[in-house]
């Protein structure tokens, strides 16, 4: 090919491509103004882990003559920050994915409008953490130590039952955790230890873990897929979710009779993450946004969540999938820390933890 033709071709392609990349006359604005009867668009800001069934969203769209546009903006922290930074000109109508560790920040920045959904009456009080209902609970999940059942059976060793057990010599070098400064389950586990041992005792516990050769890595996927003995590693205890055992069964290569992992739930070893959604101030679609929040709390959406996001519905009437019923345990008691306590203590705990465990 002769280069003297190359250049004009590049420009031609560039022009074509630029033309093709123009966002197709976007249906939202056009339809909104020209025909009030046409579908209205609701945009939902959410984090990377959000997932939902096609059919469920289609049902909402049909029912309300609407189109739902999802926008993902990073992990839960990044998503909230972007919503805060754009509060003068909101990115969307609804934000889903603020969890209880970020709840205070979200409320302090005053970016949500209250909405008293009638369906909140069905949600247990323990999940309703904002008394003004600016943020409505949608789902929850527990972050707990998970262990590789076969490893412990092979070694004839009893698996740990409580957080205290993890300090025992027989579990030396078996635990891998995530850095609380870079990972959401890592932070949850740090908060578990603060809740259990107090703000003045948790560092001592971590010193014990460090003496027992705990391995710290930065992300959940490194811990779970590279260090956990079930997958690529050598350590049979990992911090993960209460729903990981059913996920292992659902995403097994060959059908499994039992889950290959189990969860340590004794002695408040789990931290409960509750995820919230709210209507962003400045939304032009208040009515549709309310309908969407009602929909998120309805059985149709609540029953779809477990297999999409591996979380539990806050609506107790929602039926759980079979795998969840059989392979997961919902702990009776979890580590208790209020969103305010978390907001106040987070930075100091992280700093002290970094100095104690990493230096």
């Amino acid at each position, binding site marked *: *090919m002769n*280069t003297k033709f*190359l*250049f004009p071709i*590049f420009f031609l392609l*560039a022009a074509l*491509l630029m033309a093709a*990349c123009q966002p197709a006359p976007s249906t939202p604005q056009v339809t909104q103004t020209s025909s009030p009867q046409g579908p209205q668009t609701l945009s939902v800001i959410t984090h*990377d882990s*959000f997932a*939902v*069934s*096609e*059919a469920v969203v289609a049902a909402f769209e049909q029912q309300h003559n609407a189109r739902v*546009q*999802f*926008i*993902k*903006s*990073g*992990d839960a922290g*990044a998503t909230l*920050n*972007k919503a*805060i*930074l754009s509060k003068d*000109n909101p*990115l969307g109508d609804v934000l889903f994915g603020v969890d209880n560790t970020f709840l205070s920040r979200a409320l302090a920045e005053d970016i949500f409008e209250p909405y008293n959904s009638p369906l909140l009456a069905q949600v247990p009080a323990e999940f309703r953490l904002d008394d003004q209902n600016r943020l409505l609970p949608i789902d929850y999940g527990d972050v707990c130590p998970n262990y590789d059942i*076969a490893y412990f059976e092979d070694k004839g060793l009893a698996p740990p039952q409580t957080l205290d057990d993890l300090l025992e010599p027989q579990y030396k070098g078996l635990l891998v955790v995530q*850095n609380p400064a870079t990972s959401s389950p890592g*932070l949850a586990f740090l908060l578990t230890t603060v809740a259990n041992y107090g703000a003045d005792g948790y560092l001592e516990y971590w010193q014990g873990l460090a003496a027992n050769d705990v*391995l*710290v*890595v*930065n*992300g*959940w*996927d*490194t811990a779970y*897929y*590279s260090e956990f003995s079930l*997958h*690529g*590693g*050598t350590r049979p205890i990992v911090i993960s979710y209460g729903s*990981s055992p059913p996920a*292992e069964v*659902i*995403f*097994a*290569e060959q059908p*499994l009779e*039992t*889950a*290959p*992992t189990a969860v340590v739930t004794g002695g408040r070893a789990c931290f409960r993450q509750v995820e919230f959604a709210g209507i962003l101030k400045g939304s032009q679609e208040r009515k549709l946004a309310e309908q969407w929040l009602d929909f998120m709390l309805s059985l149709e959406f609540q029953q779809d969540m477990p297999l*999409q996001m591996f979380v539990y519905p806050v609506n107790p009437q929602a039926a759980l999938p079979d795998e969840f019923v059989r392979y997961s345990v919902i702990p009776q008691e979890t580590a208790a820390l209020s969103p305010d306590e978390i907001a106040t203590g*987070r*930075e100091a705990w*992280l700093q002290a933890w970094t100095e104690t465990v990493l230096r």
Partner: protein
Amino acid sequence: MRVKSLALLWMAPLGFLALFYFYPLGSILQLSFARSAGGAAGALLEALRSVAVREALWFTLWQAALSTLLTLLVGLPGAYLLARYQFRGKSWLMALASVPFVLPTPVVAAAFHALLGPRGWANQLLMSLLQLETPPIAFVNSLAAILAAHVFYNTTIVLRVVGDFWSRLDPRLWQAAQALGASRRQRFLRLTLPLLAPAIAAASLLVFIFDFTSFGVILLLGGPRFATLEVAIYQQATGLFNLPLAAALSLIQLVCTLSLTVIYSRLSARLSRPLSLRPRTYTQQRLRTWRTRLAAGLLAGALLVFFTLPLAALALRSVTSIEARSRLDRPAAPGLTLDYYRELGVNRRGSLFYVTPATAIAISLGYAAATVLLALALGLPVAWALARGGDAPLNRWLDPLLLLPLGTSAVTLGLGFIVALDRPPLDLRASPLLPPLAHTLVAFPFVVRSLAPALRSVRPRLRQAAAVLGASPWQALRRIELPIIGRALLVGAAFAFSISMGEFGATAVIARPEYPTIPIAIYRLLSLPGSLNYGQAMALSAILMAVTAGSILAIDRLRTGEGDEF
């Protein structure tokens, strides 16, 4: 060249930078510092006083310097081999070397884990050979892992930037030197190094900036004991929402990049000289003697092993089933399987955001094509201005600005997009145009760096001759300069393409979930438990490697019959 036409050349690229770089960056910095009680100065002082920040800055600097040095040590011999010799499989070696550059960090981390992790192939082999109980190689979560990954990623920059320039240097210079009695060492020190200096400086700068702003490699392979400024910015901005501190750190990072680029552009203007570049058919020789064959074979082999082993470990992992054990009596039996690839085509959970691998490939290729075109369209005028305008004040002031986007925190710039590009007609926050625009910011300095040395060394006499013969500047460009720099143009295109393919801005840019690129689709799979998800992530990574290698090979093929008639 007149100031007016120089300014004209700079206009479009500067407008682009102003709109998509300086404006968003300025907005977010201003907004962040407004949240600090002491303003910008207070936040900066606080940052510089913190021991953790000083440690992070020091670590960022020395690991980048060390990584760059190692990358040069690996890359320069390779560049020599590729520049001076013709041998079978050369384009394959080049394509293979550019694969790491595009792989998203989670994939490279997975590749290193598959090879050298606690249960990686190397450890498994050693454990069974030596009858060991515990894995002998502790590679991940170490400085060695960070350095190795940086070299793995960036060697292709040295191979391309230096190798391409080297391949056009006239070998008669060396023959003359030899005839005049210069020893091998003298030829290297007095001829090779000075001539290559501009290309080496350009490559080192690019590599250094990449290592300096390293994020994923540090997080995933270095582990929590290592933190670069970029990691600290991410933690402050996302986890703690301490925007003033994050902004102060971004500013420190920027100042470092700017100082470097200023030093570089001063240096490169002094280093480069007009040369007569020769077509490669003329400069390259076949491997004739058994000694050169042996040396070339060893060198190519070493490069091949270095680039292939982690990639092969990953590819192997994508077809190996390591089933999670559910019972004692059914031990894990690794077996070969194509299940992961098959599963990629199934939307098992009826998920709204599911895309087939073919769609993800198409989306990635679409973004990459747009990035290549945009980066070339913006990079060519700049490279031309730099080459023709020489040391004009305009060039001296503007050139260092180009590399700034590379050395800018992606997290900060991502937040800047949200703050700045938020009103029509520029409400690009959730637009599918945003990814290629963001990719172009990173890709376009690469295009300039690839083109400028080549354009600069076009001898003015050629152009003057054309002018005397009545050619307009445009004709001179099209008939003389473009054919000479055709190769460099392709190098730039390959870079832009690679950058876009591998860009993984999950934390930086907001995305429309219905248009996931391959890296984003991989990341989605990696964030769910279950062997099938991990296996699919490996399978999709293998597909990304194949698509990239294939595309780079195709771009390389374009040059057949390039301006070699010169």
